[in-house]
C-alpha cells in the first residue's frame, strides 16, 4: 500500500534493538567515499559493519534493499517543532514523526518558541524522552535573552545542557557589538552561531521578495540587500575573530553566497544551508497571494535560484535544511500581508532534492546525500552521525531514487498542512528510516 507507515513504539523501553542486516542496497556514504553495492550490519544501536555483498551473515532481521540507496541517516539543521508553547501548530511528537516519514533521523530545533529557549532548563526539557521525539532531537538555543538581540545567553550552560548551536532565528542579531560578542563567546566554546540574515530595518511590513511580482501585487518587498548586507557583515566578523563559527541559515540570495564564498576562501569557519523551497520555487510562484508561498527569507528571483543551484553543486553550500515551519489554518487563510511566514518541509525535502537537483539539474546522488548527512553533521559537530563508519549511531535512511509518487498534504504527519507542494508529483521516495537500529518508518 502506497504510503503505508508503521511507527514502532520508540517510547517502549522493552523493545531493545537487535541486529539488522541491510542487504543488496547501493550504499552512498560520502564521508567514507563509499558509492557501491554493499551490505550494512547494525547491531546494538550502532553500525557494526559495512561490507561487500553477501559477506555478512547471521542477523536477527534482514532488510532487502535491492534497487534502493542506503545512506547515513539524514540530518535537518533547521526545524520549528513549536514546543514549548505552540502545540496547536506542531508538537515534538508530531514533528519528529513527520521527520521520520521524510527520511530524517536527526533534527535540530529552533528556539523561537513561547517561551524562547534561552536557558538550560528549556534545553533539558526539550531533550526529555517524555516529549516523545521519535528521531534524534538536537536543540539550538537562543543567542540572546528572549532573542531580543540585547544580552547574550549563557552559552556554556546551554551547551552543557545539550544545545548544539545558538541563534535568534526568526530575527537577526543586528547590532555589530552583540554579533561580535556572540561569535567571540562561540569561538571559546567551539559553538556555532546561526544567523537569520535579514536587515529588519529594510523589511518593515514586507511580505515577499522585492521585484516585479511584489510590485505587481502591491506588496512591500524584502530586498536581496536585506539578506546580503547582514551576511557580508557577519562573514567579515567571522574572519576577524579567530576560531569563531558562523552558520548562515536558509541562505536565499546570490549576493549572500558571494559573501560566504569570500569567507570560505579566507579559511574562516563559515557554513551555510539552503532550503528545498529556495532551490525549487521562484517569487512569481506566489501567484495571486497564495500564502503557502509566503516564508522568510522569501522565494527569490531566477538569478538567485540559479546561483543557489550552482553553489549546491560546487560545494559552497554545506547542507540542505527544511526550515520546517508549521502554522495553523487560521494563521495562513488570511490576508497575505498578515499571514504567518513559513511552510512545512520535512516530508517533501528528500523528494524535491532528487526531483529537482538530481533529475533536473544532474547533481550526483552522492552530493545530494552529502548535503543531508556529512555536510550537516560537520556544521554542528554531530559526532557519530551523518556517516556509516563502524561504531557510528545506527541511523540509516533508505530511499528509492526512481519511485514516482504524489505528495498529499492531507496525509502529512505534521499537525499543520501549510505547504506549497500539495499534490505535487515527485520522484524519489524514502522507503525506510532507521534510528538507533530501530525501524521507525517503512513505506512500500
Amino acid at each position: 500500500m502506497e504510503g503505508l507507515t508503521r511507527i514502532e513504539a520508540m517510547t517502549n523501553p522493552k523493545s531493545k534493538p537487535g541486529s539488522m542486516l541491510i542487504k543488496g542496497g547501493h550504499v552512498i556514504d560520502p564521508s567514507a567515499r563509499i558509492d557501491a553495492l554493499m551490505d550494512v550490519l547494525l547491531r546494538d544501536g550502532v553500525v557494526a559493519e559495512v561490507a561487500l555483498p553477501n559477506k555478512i551473515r547471521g542477523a536477527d532481521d534482514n532488510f532487502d534493499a535491492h534497487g534502493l540507496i542506503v545512506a547515513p541517516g539524514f540530518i535537518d539543521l533547521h526545524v520549528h517543532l513549536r514546543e514549548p508553547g505552540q502545540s496547536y501548530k506542531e508538537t515534538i511528537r508530531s514533528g519528529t514523526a513527520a521527520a521520520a516519514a521524510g527520511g530524517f533521523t536527526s533534527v535540530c530545533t529552533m528556539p523561537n518558541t513561547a517561551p524562547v529557549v534561552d536557558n538550560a532548563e528549556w534545553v533539558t526539557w526539550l531533550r526529555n524522552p517524555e516529549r516523545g521525539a521519535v528521531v534524534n532531537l538536537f536543540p539550538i538555543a537562543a543567542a540572546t535573552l528572549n532573542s531580543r538581540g540585547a544580552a547574550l545567553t549563557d552559552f556554556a550552560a546551554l551547551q552543557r545542557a545539550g544545545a548544539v548551536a545558538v541563534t535568534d532565528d526568526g530575527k537577526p542579531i543586528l547590532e555589530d557589538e552583540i554579533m561580535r560578542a556572540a561569535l567571540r563567546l562561540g569561538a571559546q566554546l567551539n559553538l556555532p552561531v546561526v544567523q537569520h540574515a535579514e536587515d529588519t530595518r529594510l523589511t518593515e511590513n514586507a511580505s515577499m521578495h522585492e521585484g516585479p511580482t511584489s510590485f505587481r501585487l502591491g506588496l512591500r518587498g524584502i530586498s536581496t540587500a536585506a539578506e546580503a548586507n547582514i551576511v557580508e557583515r557577519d562573514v567579515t566578523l567571522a574572519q576577524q575573530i579567530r576560531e569563531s563559527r558562523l552558520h548562515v541559515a536558509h541562505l536565499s540570495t546570490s549576493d549572500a553566497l558571494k559573501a560566504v564564498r569570500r569567507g570560505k576562501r579566507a579559511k574562516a569557519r563559515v557554513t551555510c544551508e539552503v532550503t528545498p523551497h529556495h532551490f525549487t520555487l521562484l517569487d512569481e510562484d506566489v501567484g495571486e497571494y497564495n500564502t503557502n508561498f509566503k516564508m522568510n527569507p522569501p522565494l527569490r528571483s531566477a538569478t538567485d535560484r540559479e546561483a543557489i543551484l550552482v553553489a549546491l553543486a560546487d560545494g559552497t553550500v554545506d547542507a540542505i535544511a527544511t526550515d520546517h515551519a508549521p502554522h495553523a489554518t487560521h494563521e495562513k487563510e488570511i490576508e497575505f500581508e498578515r499571514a504567518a511566514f513559513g511552510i512545512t518541509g520535512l516530508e517533501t525535502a528528500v523528494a524535491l532534492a532528487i526531483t529537482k537537483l538530481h533529475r533536473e539539474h544532474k547533481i550526483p546522488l552522492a552530493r545530494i546525500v552529502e548535503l543531508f548527512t556529512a555536510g550537516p553533521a560537520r556544521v554542528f559537530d554531530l559526532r557519530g552521525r551523518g556517516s556509516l563508519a563502524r561504531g557510528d549511531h545506527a541511523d540509516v535512511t533508505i530511499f528509492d531514487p526512481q519511485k514516482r509518487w504524489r505528495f498529499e498534504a492531507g496525509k502529512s504527519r505534521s499537525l499543520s498542512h501549510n505547504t506549497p507542494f500539495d499534490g505535487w508529483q515527485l520522484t524519489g521516495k524514502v522507503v525506510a528510516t532507521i534510528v538507533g537500529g530501530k525501524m521507525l518508518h517503512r513505506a512500500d
Partner: protein
Amino acid sequence: MNKPARGSLLGIEHLEEKEILGLLRLARGMNPLKARPLLRNQRIALLFYEASTRTRSSFEVAAKSMGAITVLVLSSGSSIEKGESLLDTGYTLRAVGADLIVIRHPSAGAPLMMAQHLDIPVINAGDGMHEHPSQALLDAFTILKHKKSFQGLRVAIIGDLYHSRVARSACHLLSKVGVKVTLCGPPELVPEFATTLAPGLSITRHIEEALRGADVIMLLRVQQERLAGKKIHLQDYMARYQMTTGRLKLAKRDAIVMHPGPIIRGLELTSEVVDGPQSVIVDEVRNGVPTRMAILARALGKAN
C-alpha cells in the same frame, strides 16, 4: 476556495480590453439624476476598512440612485474591532442577505480572498498598494470625455507609483487600450521594475521628458504615511517633480491634468495648476458616480 462570482471587479490586470470598453460604454449611458431603478431590492454592503471620501460616497450614491439598499460597515464600530476575521465578516454580510460587497482594505489581495470564499460579486474599492479598478475606469471615462478616443494618446504618470494602487490600475488599463505611458519620478517611488507591470510602459527620471508631447498628465500624491524606511526629501522632490504652470507648457496645449486625490496643494502640484483651465480633477470625482453605476449594474446582471 472558489472562482470569484461573475461580475466581480477585483482589478484591471485580469480584465480584457473589450470588458473595459464595455464598462466605459455602459458608464456613458448612466445618468445619476435620471437613473432607472435597475437595482431595486438589491442589497449592497459597503465594507470599508480604510478611510475614504470620494470612493465611498460615490459608490453609495451610485447604488442608491439605482434603487439599491446599502449598508455601510466600517472597521471601527463593528465586530472587526473585536478581532473578527475578514472572511468571517464576509460570511456574516452574506448571511444578512448582501447581494454584493464593495470592499476597501489596507491589505493587497483582500478583495480577491473574499471573492474566493463567497458566492456573490465582490467589488474592489482599493486594496493596499495593489489596485483601485473603479478609479482607473473613471479616469479612463474622464480621458474619453476630453479626448474622444484612446488612439495615439500619450499619458505621463508622475509621482509616487510605488505606493499607489491607482497607478497600478491605471497602467494596466491604459496599456490594454493601447496608450503609451511614461512613468516619472525618483527611483524610490518609481522602481526600474515598474515597467514590467504591463506592455507599453517606459520610465524617465526627468519631468520635462515625461511632459513633452503628453496629452494627459496624471499626478500622484507622495504617500508620506506609507514611506516606511524609504527616504524622500520633499524639497528635492518638489524641485524636480512638482507640476507648475511653467512645466505644464511643455505638454500639448490641450493636455489635461488629472489627480485621483486627495491632492496636497503646493507639493505634487501648485494651486495654480489645480484651479487652472487644464485641470479636470473635480470632473474626475463627478465621473465616479456613473462609472460606479456601470460597475454595480454589470455586477448584478442588470446591465442591459
